[in-house]
């Protein structure tokens, strides 16, 4: 199943903030985590993650630091800030409203709506 591009874009910010709320991380690891969480069904264009991270950094939601990796190649790590946590909480409230409304629509819809595919191997 391919997730609609707009839906991916809309969920990208809360997803990234949510992943970083668990601890600081870097671009490639964040994408791997998104892959795990969605069981590979949310496909991002990898390159697009970085402008998003920079935008969040500029908005003050993330703080970036360059870490010297043991293999001598530097890596840019991102950590969530207090403002980022606030933004995440706010996004979460918004998503809960949206998904609550959608839930009711699924339940009350008179025509048959295909039920969600069975969850497969979420996480590893």
């Amino acid at each position: 199943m391919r997730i609609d591009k707009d839906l991916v874009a809309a969920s990208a910010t809360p997803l990234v903030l949510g992943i970083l709320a668990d601890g600081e991380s870097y671009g490639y690891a964040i994408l791997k985590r998104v892959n795990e969480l969605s069981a590979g069904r949310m496909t991002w264009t990898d390159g697009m993650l970085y402008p998003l991270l920079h935008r969040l950094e500029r908005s003050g939601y993330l703080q970036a630091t360059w870490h010297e990796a043991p293999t001598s190649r530097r890596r840019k790590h991102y950590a969530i800030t207090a403002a980022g946590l606030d933004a995440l909480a706010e996004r979460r409230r918004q998503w809960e409203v949206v998904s609550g409304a959608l839930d009711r629509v699924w339940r009350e819809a008179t025509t048959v709506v295909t039920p969600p595919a069975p969850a497969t191997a979420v996480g590893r």
Partner: protein
Amino acid sequence: MTAVHEPLDGDVEAQIGQWRGYVQRHRAISGNDVEELEGHLRDQIGDLGRSGLSGDEAFLVSVKRLGRLDVVSREFAREHSDRLWKQLVLAGSGEAATGGTRRELGVVLGLAVGAGLAIKLPALVGLTLADDPGFYARNLALFVLPLLAAYFAWKRGMPIRRATLMLAPPFAVAAVLANVYPFATEGATEVLTAIHLPVVLWMVMGLAYVGGEWRSHPRRMDFIRFTGEWAVYYVLLALGGGLLSGLTIAGFALLGTDAAEFVGTWVLPCGAMGAVLVAAWLVEAKQAVVENIAPVLTKVFTPLTALMLLALLVATLAGGDVVQVERELLILVDLILVLVLGLLLYAISARDPDAPPSGFDWLQLLLVGSALAVDVLMLSAMAARIAEFGFSANKSAALGLNLVLLVNLAWSAWLSVGFLRQRVPLRALERWQTGYLPVYAAWAALVVIAFPPVFDFV
């Protein structure tokens, strides 16, 4: 920084190197970003290699997953529009752009000639500079800035109706006010109008520069950058033009012909007007040839100005009585504040917004702080005298400008402190400056519109 992080075969290394070179050509993606993307690519290749793909295959899949580079680059550009500033001219250069460039040059030269003729038009109907210098002083900006506004409205592709509605009324009102008010000859209000009207009209021209998007803060920042670069180019053109004029006069003098008259009445005024447009076009078109110069000057003069202000501060505190020169002093203090504000603006405009606070930011705070201290000390020393002699037009204009600048610098200093303590993002400082632009326009407009009648046109 490109040391191999796990052994990849030489083929893949070469491919990554090629890829890196290709990415580096996208100006919106800075060196650090390339490194970040390359790290991602290598991680991906490594993972794919472990799951059994050959080096070549892994490289291809990884690059494909990164996405089309022009799309990614555009996304970077949207986030870091400041990086494009140095490169505007290169966009679309090469293939089909030359036709457009040539056409633009034609438009600019046409408008420049138009501006040159406009300044000579009154003389052709019998009103020369010697007859009425006040007329020329008041209308100077009106001869050229409408043309510059027209150039930018055309360049930015503003719809004609929108451009006319937005730009024509202010220019028309300015033309009426500058010529209908019954100014006393060489009175203070006439001089004030001659100084403030160009500021108002420059801002009106700015509406065209930003293509009507005056609400956009990034566009306003571009306008600030443009203003600084334009001033630099204009001075350079003026120096070159002056030198050339001098050589011309000297050359003809050797042949026994006096060219000074012709140079003075035709070449200088027409050249000065035309250069306004040519300088604007140079800023637009040739940014890649000369690096942005205003920020360079800022870096040089920030420490020097801070030093000068500290010396002034010490001298004031060490009992230097403020002597009676009050109007001159007011104007002097205003000029100092304008200089400090300019240094602050161009430092912000050229700063990498992602970089953490550095020593230079401290220096800047010192600069603003000492300017504020000097201003407050001198104003309080003068307060009694100002009250005693009442408010003349000049004094009111100088005091008002002082207040406008003081408010800006005081809040800038406050934001800088927050930035240095990493409580406030640099963006807040940027937004404060871009948000303040209309205040200058409003103050200058107030001086132009209200001061002459209030002070009886003297």
